[in-house]
């Protein structure tokens, strides 16, 4: 029935599509994903260098965009969530937000059409950075044992503590960073798969044996267009959520005693 269709692409798409072969034979690590990751990093670095190279009191368009992006994270995330102390994390949070945003938007840029964040390795690495940062801040502020206590012990009656301690420990030290990575990865991966299914599904329908199935491919492609706009929303939202949760965890770490 399906197999090869007009565009010479296999349908349905599979998880293996997310593990592309190496680009130039030799280097196995040089795949589409690592290339796009560098591209995202390069775009962010070059954009900010250019925007701030020659700052003016009345900003140019580029400078205005850079300033409002940074200002948004500084005021809207760092200051609002963590408080005044959070301002020193604003550069980290802003780089995180803008890098993930650019990476995510790649999922709907023509000819790129896949976000590096759709590969579990990259969100996992970013989540590890956040994890390391908030553990370090916690140990610095509360001391090693102090932070372990801070993160797990709650003001509760003593007989509840044995019941609650393992739950809190699992939540704070394992589930928090893990879900941070998984949420971003799963959203971008699912979005990529969704677009792929509807695009390739259109070809599969066009190739169908029944004449009446052919026009339905148009519906499938219309869905692709709608989902592309939806994907733009998800891309921005997930970048924001990742940054916000990072700030949230930092705030929890830096908080005084409960």
């Amino acid at each position: 029935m399906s197999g090869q269709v007009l565009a010479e692409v296999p349908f349905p798409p599979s998880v293996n599509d997310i593990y592309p072969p190496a680009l130039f034979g030799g280097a196995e690590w040089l795949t589409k994903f690592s290339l796009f990751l560098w591209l995202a990093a390069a775009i962010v670095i070059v954009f900010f260098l250019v925007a701030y190279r020659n700052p003016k009191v009345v900003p140019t368009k580029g400078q205005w965009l850079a300033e409002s992006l940074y200002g948004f994270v500084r005021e809207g995330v760092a200051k609002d969530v963590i408080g005044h102390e959070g301002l020193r994390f604003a550069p980290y949070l802003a780089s995180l937000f803008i890098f993930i945003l650019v990476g995510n938007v790649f999922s709907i840029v023509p000819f790129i059409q896949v976000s590096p964040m759709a590969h579990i390795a990259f969100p996992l690495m970013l989540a590890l950075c956040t994890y390391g940062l908030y553990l370090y801040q916690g140990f610095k502020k509360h001391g090693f044992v102090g932070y372990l206590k801070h993160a797990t012990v709650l003001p509760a009656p003593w007989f509840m503590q044995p019941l609650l301690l393992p739950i809190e420990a699992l939540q704070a030290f394992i589930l928090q960073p893990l879900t941070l990575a998984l949420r971003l990865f799963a959203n971008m991966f699912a979005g990529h798969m969704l677009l792929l299914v509807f695009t390739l599904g259109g070809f599969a329908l066009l190739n169908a044996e029944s004449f009446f199935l052919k026009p339905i491919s148009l519906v499938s492609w219309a869905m692709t267009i709608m989902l592309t706009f939806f994907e733009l929303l998800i891309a921005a939202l997930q970048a924001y959520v990742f940054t916000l949760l990072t700030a949230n965890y930092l705030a929890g770490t830096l908080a005084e005693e409960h």
Partner: protein
Amino acid sequence: MADNQTPKQSGASGANTGWAAVGYLISGIAVWGFVGWLIDRWLGSDGIVTGIGCVLGAAGGIYLVVKKLGA
């Protein structure tokens, strides 16, 4: 948490509260269900301790949600 300094609750941080609540419930059941399962293997009993563990864990999870996220 940080809600002693800023009274605002935007949509996104509301979502975070929701995630945390689900996380507590699931991790409660997972942790104590797992402990119960280990005891089950040790005693050779038939899953009864796993059940008790899950119920205990759910209770602990609900307690945590009320304590940390409630009012």
